């Protein structure tokens, strides 16, 4: 009886939410990276987890200009007062966008989107036509700059479905490397473009042409399920793995040290 109860407790400790899985997966993909440009939310958790485990030297750079943040609490926005408190640097906007981003200092940029296509171009502008949109989305913000200037881009999309993974974007806000080169071959590009897409169903990786292919499925998810949720004929990497679950230590760090009040661990 006692053993069973202990087993159940052990099981509860080791079961995890989608956010915890996405944070742990993102964290592992950050191994060996140094400077990460990211907004608030899952990427914040992934970078914090990496700092406390595999990559102590990794640093998150915020669009607000904050570098080397040591916030006394989890920030609610990319320009939260707590990010300034005790930060190593707060850069002006021309320095951040001009020298840091355009200057090529960013190893990994994290982006989200309402729609993504098979080469990783992103729509954050409108659903429907731009001149008379069905839904007006926030727009580029710095996304075009992050896409064009990071050495590689990770996209986190919590909802993997045919409305988000589309054959053709309603509007291309931030073009993939392939789209940028095709449209304007004489405009200099940098890096690899979108290399990795992390979703609630699995992980997509770019092949050598930049096409996003299924690389791993999360526990309990089938390849067919991911294909059905993708709006283009999704190709598979040679060997599909099952995404490794978060380790007990990763879960402990996320729950007890990084986000104890579960601001982002929804």
């Amino acid at each position, binding site marked *: 009886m006692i053993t069973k109860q202990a087993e159940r407790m052990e099981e509860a400790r080791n079961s995890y939410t989608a956010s915890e899985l996405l944070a742990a997966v993102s964290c592992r993909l950050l191994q060996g990276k140094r400077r990460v440009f990211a907004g*608030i*939310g899952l990427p914040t958790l992934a970078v914090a987890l990496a700092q406390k485990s595999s990559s102590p030297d990794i640093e998150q750079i915020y*669009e*607000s*200009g*904050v570098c080397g943040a040591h916030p006394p609490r989890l920030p*609610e*926005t*990319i*320009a*939260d*007062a707590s*990010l*300034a*408190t*005790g930060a190593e640097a*707060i850069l*002006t*906007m*021309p320095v951040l*966008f*001009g020298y840091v*981003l*355009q200057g090529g200092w960013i190893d990994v940029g994290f982006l989200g989107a309402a729609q993504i296509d098979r080469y990783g*171009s992103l729509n954050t*502008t409108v659903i*429907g036509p*731009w*001149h*008379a*949109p*069905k*839904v*007006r989305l*926030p*727009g*580029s*913000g*710095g996304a*075009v*700059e992050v896409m*064009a*200037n990071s050495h590689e881009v990770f996209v986190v999309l919590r909802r993997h479905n045919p409305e988000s993974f589309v054959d053709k974007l309603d*509007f*291309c*806000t*931030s*073009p*993939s490397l392939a*789209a*940028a*080169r*095709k*449209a*304007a071959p*004489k*405009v*200099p*590009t*940098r890096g690899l473009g979108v290399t990795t897409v992390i979703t609630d169903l699995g992980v997509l990786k770019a092949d050598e042409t930049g096409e996003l292919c299924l690389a791993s499925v999360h526990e309990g998810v089938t390849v067919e399920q991911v294909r059905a949720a993708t709006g283009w004929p999704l190709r598979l990497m040679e060997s599909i793995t099952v995404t490794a679950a978060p380790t007990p230590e990763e879960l402990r760090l996320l729950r007890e040290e990084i986000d104890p009040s579960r601001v982002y661990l929804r």
Partner: protein
Amino acid sequence: MTNKQFSLQDAVSELVSDGDVVALEGFTHLIPFAAGHEIIRQGIRDLTLVRMTPDIVADQLVGAGCVSKLIFAFTGNSSVGSLYAIRRAVENGSVSPIEIEEYSHYGLLARYQAGASGVPFMPIRSYAGSDLPGVNPNLKRVTSPFDSEVETYVVPALNPDVAIVHAQRADASGNVQSWGILGPQQEVAFASRKTIVLVEEIVDDGVIRSDPNRTIIPGFAVDAVVECGYGAHPSFAQGYYDRDNDFYRAWSDISKDPQKLEQWIQEWIHDVGNHAGYLNKLGNNYFERLTPVALLSTPVNYGSVL
């Protein structure tokens, strides 16, 4: 030294006119809400509002009918909801549409930089393959004059009629000091024909001169300086008060319903009469929970041999 102190009412009525191109800047931090409210109160119309990140204050200005065109890069209320007045104005079937002109963050910032520097345009590395140049003819691709094999996108200089920004402190002649997240305030102040700065406090010029590197806008580039404590609420002023996140979360509900929005504008902007009335309505202890724990910087030595 010229005294450039104005009341908020006088600064707005003397420097902002119907039909102006007005830039209200502040990147989450130090958003000039009190100035936005004064523009609404004075019923100024037909403005081209320039703002990198139109948020609640832009939603209020659009909702109050002050804006005919919006120039922007990102319009949203962080992760806590939509700006429905703006969405109602730009989505399909709008009954009172406004014109929009859309950039990315660096695209619009580079327009301020070009405007401030007196050059006709500025090259940036973005936009190849994006649909944005297709809907905004200001994003142009040109060949490098130095290498015919290299192309770049350029954005034109922007010189707004008026820039309005908020900062922590200034002296009476308008030397403005700010710290924390700085946003595009310096760039827009230099780009604009006239600049209004609201500050948490007007301080003695000795305070400013004790730390001259902290001055982001020198007095000569400022036309009016307005003492306006808590004038950035519900955004924040580093070291003075923190962001009122509850207000941000509550906004979607207000802005979603046009009647609720109209009522809010009546109650919190018109009926209160002025910024002091707004603070009074918030109540005496309102800012207690938003007051930061002090963390003072270590002074630096600016001394020299006498």
